[in-house]
């Protein structure tokens, strides 16, 4: 019944620093781009595929635990991958003169957007002066006055004719407050009073009335020609204005047209600009005049002038009227090298798809195409956009907006507030921008799987999953890459070089982080933090290089900052507030081990588990579950115990006990099955009456066959019990039983390893329940003979005997009850 315990070398994998080919990290070539390796081959392959494939919907979701450097990795990889690819064109918006509410999109070759904007700015500055010069010229004024005079003369001629005809008939034309009328006159030319008119002979009066009616009809006939004349006059004046404006602006427009002749859309835009200026030349001249007179009025002017197209023009002078000829450069790619890789830190709906801003003016909110603002989709168009999935989902409308853009392959700027009818004001419908972008969502696996299950669009739009592993193999290749990566962080953060002992200690810490002697953590954030803190410790110690001692100090300091609660727990055990025995023997009582997680800090502690039995119907009562303090996995573990007991000891008779199990002094919930081993040991001890050594603690889960299975947090659990024992006094008897499959996960603290080395503490790997019981009780478990009976004096014999006894009692109890019932 000899049970081996683990040797100190099995408790911790020491990094062999002699195999590191450098003295300090300053000798290493720094690896700044983590996407060039460091243990994420699967993610690299997925990103390569996602970026490479051009078909729709092959966007990428980079999933992995937080802190694994997904953002940096993705950004660095994409930047490198897209370097050297063609840069996208500039995106501009210009006024749509036909429909000002729907600004037109203008795409220009890279860097040319600003050129055109500056050219149009120059036009906006020079055009009013050029127009003013042309329209104030003597030649124009003469031609205009000649036209106006022609109309005036026609108008006056009509009235003079009427007046003359009226005079021949003894009438005159007289002006009234709202028109004119014909009136009879006396021979002297004065208007005839009514009483005099009445004195005229009847035939004379009738003749005058008839004449007046004729004159009225005549005037009406002549007046009907006025609108046509006015129309002709306006047309002639417009033609004149057109001619003069073309003359004044022709060279300015042609200069721009020639410069951008390779972009036909610019020519179309310039044609529209020229037409609009001609249509609105009077408004422009008027505003220029006001500008010169310093009488900037605040009366609203309206776009469209004579055309009456009705678009709103913000009030003001020259600048504001000419504003509509400007170019709004939404995305300027002049400084972009290769396809852009954009990370949007605040992915609100507006920050993604852009927005239309408004300006308050005279109590109203107004806008125009110059107030259209870009979103990150605009900036990333032609390249890649990296977004944090969690942030996108948190922002109202952002996720839907992103999906809409990806599905429609275009960016359509719509106001969220208007979509929900929260505001009602003048807004714009800018022409949508065709979208060609790879979106990389970075987030946790949980979000990935939730989206996968609950959002049918997700699978169509994000077909590529880039899975980031939280660990990588601890081999020579990765060890060297790890050191180079550390050199990269040192260079980036300006830290002291790390001595190879420091690198070794960090590698060990990394292995401890993933609880595996064969693996290293890829948690970049944790690594970076530890390196910075170790650098600080080195500085405090006055060292130029960071050694293992500094790293250890940084680890200890970090633990110290976080382990206040652990200390309180330890203290309460030491002072006997929480009852934990670390010596002696007791039946039906055992030290189980549990782990508490406080953020990213985890620590272990022992829990007293007790079991009591009585005659019953084979049920094992989990008291935690009865009071709803047991999680489902824990409850499952307890139910497995009944399966084990029945299978091993009660194949041919009913299991006639009722057992209750409880975590003493536990007031919070319990989850996980890592205590199921301890619970079974405790139960077997209670049934058999064999006492258990209280100097030992137990962790591990068990299946129905009595095999002990691996659990998590093995290091913290061992250390937790070790700390309690050390506080109460190590007596060389104490130790922990762990599943044998957890041995490779051991990366224990140095003080624990030293205690084991000194024989003051023991760690026993256990494969079966029988092994564990033998260690705990010092008695042989016992193998069943051919008939299934266990040798006398063994643990299993005692358990089997007790259960048989209970079964017999139950049978007798049942018979007596039946007899009693009959009598």
């Amino acid at each position: 019944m000899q049970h081996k315990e683990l040797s100190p070398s099995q408790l911790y994998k020491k990094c062999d620093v002699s195999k590191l080919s450098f003295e300090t990290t300053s000798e290493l070539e720094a690896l700044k781009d983590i996407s060039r390796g460091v243990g994420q081959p699967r993610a690299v392959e997925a990103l390569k595929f996602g970026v490479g494939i051009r078909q729709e919907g092959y966007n990428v979701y980079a999933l992995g635990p937080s802190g694994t450097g997904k953002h940096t990795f993705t950004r660095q990889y994409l930047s490198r991958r897209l370097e050297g690819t063609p840069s996208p064109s500039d995106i501009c918006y210009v006024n749509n003169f036909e429909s000002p509410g729907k600004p037109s999109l203008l795409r220009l070759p890279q860097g040319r957007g600003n050129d055109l904007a500056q050219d149009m700015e120059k036009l906006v500055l020079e055009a009013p002066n050029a127009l003013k010069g042309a329209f104030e010229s003597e030649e124009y004024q003469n031609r205009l006055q000649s036209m106006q005079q022609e109309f005036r003369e026609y108008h006056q001629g009509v009235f003079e004719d009427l007046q003359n005809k009226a005079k021949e008939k003894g009438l005159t034309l007289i002006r009234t407050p709202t028109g004119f009328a014909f009136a009879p006159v006396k021979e002297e030319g004065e208007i005839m009073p009514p009483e005099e008119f009445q004195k005229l002979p009847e035939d004379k009066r009738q003749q005058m009335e008839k004449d007046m009616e004729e004159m009225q009809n005549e005037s009406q006939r002549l007046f009907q020609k006025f609108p046509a004349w006015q129309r002709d006059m306006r047309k002639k004046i417009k033609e004149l204005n057109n001619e003069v404006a073309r003359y004044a602006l022709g060279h300015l427009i042609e200069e721009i047209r020639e410069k951008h002749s390779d972009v036909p859309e610019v020519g179309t835009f310039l044609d529209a600009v020229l037409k609009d200026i001609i249509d609105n030349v009077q408004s422009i001249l008027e505003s220029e005049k006001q500008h010169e007179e310093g009488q900037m009025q605040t009366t609203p002017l309206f776009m469209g002038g004579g055309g009456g197209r009705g678009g709103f023009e913000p009030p003001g002078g020259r600048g504001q009227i000419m504003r509509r000829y400007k170019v709004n450069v939404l995305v300027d790619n002049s400084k972009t090298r290769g396809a852009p890789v954009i990370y949007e830190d605040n992915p609100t709906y507006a920050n993604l798809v852009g927005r239309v801003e408004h300006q308050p003016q005279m109590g109203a909110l107004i806008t125009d195409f110059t107030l259209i603002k870009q979103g990150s989709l605009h900036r990333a168009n032609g390249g890649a956009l990296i977004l944090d999935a969690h942030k996108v989902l948190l922002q109202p409308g952002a996720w839907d907006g992103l999906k809409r853009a990806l599905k429609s392959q275009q960016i359509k700027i719509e106001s969220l507030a208007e979509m929900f009818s929260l505001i009602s004001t003048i807004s714009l419908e800018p022409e949508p921008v065709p979208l060609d972008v790879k979106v990389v969502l970075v987030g946790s696996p949980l979000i990935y799987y939730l989206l996968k299950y609950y959002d049918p669009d997700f699978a169509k739009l994000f077909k590529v999953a880039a899975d980031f592993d939280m660990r990588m193999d601890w081999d020579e290749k990765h060890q060297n890459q790890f050191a180079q990566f550390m050199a990269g962080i040192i260079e980036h953060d300006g830290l002291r070089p790390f001595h190879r002992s420091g690198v070794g200690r960090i590698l060990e810490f990394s292995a401890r982080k993933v609880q595996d002697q064969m693996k290293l953590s890829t948690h970049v954030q944790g690594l970076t933090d530890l390196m910075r803190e170790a650098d600080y410790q080195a500085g405090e110690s006055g060292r130029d290089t960071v050694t293992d001692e500094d790293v250890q100090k940084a680890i200890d300091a970090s633990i110290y900052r976080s382990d206040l609660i652990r200390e309180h727990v330890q203290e309460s055990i030491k002072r006997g507030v929480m009852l934990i025995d670390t010596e002696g023997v007791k039946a039906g009582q055992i030290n189980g081990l549990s782990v508490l997680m406080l953020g990213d800090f985890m620590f272990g502690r022992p829990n007293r588990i007790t079991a009591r039995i009585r005659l019953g119907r084979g049920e094992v009562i989990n008291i935690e579950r009865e009071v709803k303090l047991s999680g489902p996995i824990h409850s499952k573990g307890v139910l497995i115990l009944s399966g084990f007991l029945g299978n091993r000891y009660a194949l041919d008779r009913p299991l006639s006990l009722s057992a209750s199990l409880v975590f003493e002094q536990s007031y919070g919930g319990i989850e996980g099955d890592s205590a199921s081993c301890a619970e079974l040991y405790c139960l077997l001890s209670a049934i058999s009456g064999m006492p258990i050594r209280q100097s030992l603690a137990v962790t591990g889960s068990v299946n129905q066959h009595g095999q002990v299975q691996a659990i998590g947090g093995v290091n913290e659990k061992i250390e937790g019990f070790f700390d309690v024992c050390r506080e109460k006094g190590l007596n060389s008897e104490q130790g922990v039983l762990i599943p044998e499959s957890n041995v490779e996960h051991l990366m224990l603290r140095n003080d624990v390893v030293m205690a084991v080395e000194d024989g003051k503490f023991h760690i026993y790997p256990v494969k079966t329940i029988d092994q564990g019981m033998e260690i705990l009780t010092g008695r042989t478990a016992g193998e069943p003979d051919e008939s299934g009976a266990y040798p006398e004096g063994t643990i299993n014999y005692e358990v089997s005997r007790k259960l048989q006894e209970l079964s017999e009692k139950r049978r007798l109890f049942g018979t007596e009850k039946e007899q009693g019932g009959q009598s």
Partner: protein
Amino acid sequence: MNQDKNLLTLKRILVPLDASEHSMAALNTAAGLAAAQGAELEGLFVEDINLLQLCEFPFIREISFWGHTFRCMNRADTERQLRMRARQLKRILAEVATRHDVSWKFKVTRGGVPAEVLAAAEDADLTILGRSGWTMTRPRITGSTVRTVVSRGRGMTMIIQKGMRFQPPVQALFTGSELSEKALNVALDLGKKKDISILVYLLTDGGEKLKDMRGRVEEITSAKGVRASVQSIRAMDLKRISRTVRAYGPGPLFIPCEEPNLQGEDLQELINSLDNPVFLVR
């Protein structure tokens, strides 16, 4: 007008108003002169009796400029429209007078417009009239009220059209008569107060009389401390006078209204031929 013929003092300036562009030009000029002279500005609006009488004719129709439709004329409506027009003019007068910081009053009468203006002009030191009212014919021809005041008026009268103002150079016709000396003095006083240069046209056939007239002009201008330019125009050639005045610029022309050539139809013709403001001194 002060009794001293050499010293112009205006106490009351009358402006007949009908809201036409010409009458608004008259109002602005009157306000400017009233401010320079410390005179009171009196606006006059005449409710045209002819219009009201027209309403008595059942067959007379008013023709609108815009709709080209006929409308029966109604006295109550017409009176209301005239009252509205009067209120509008009073408000404009108040604004202009306030802007020039002059005292003002506004009067509304009813009757024939020329007769009412003539009557009101009797009590004014100066009457300033728009060249024509709401004319529908060629604007160069003066309106009936102006024609009446020119032919029958007895006080000083200024006639002005839209776009014109009291601006340099002040021009004056000088015949050597006492009235022409008065006109020259008025021109000098008004021009001096506004610091405007003056040009005097000597109307003579030449010879000795020209010399005398030149000497007299120099005397008068020297006495006022003003340096004037002098130019002679042979005989009383009104067309030539008109051409010369127009050629020299848009400034006001001071005319002594005296027999035989500067009265009646001749004077009317001279006024019609000019765009300049005309100041009739009687």
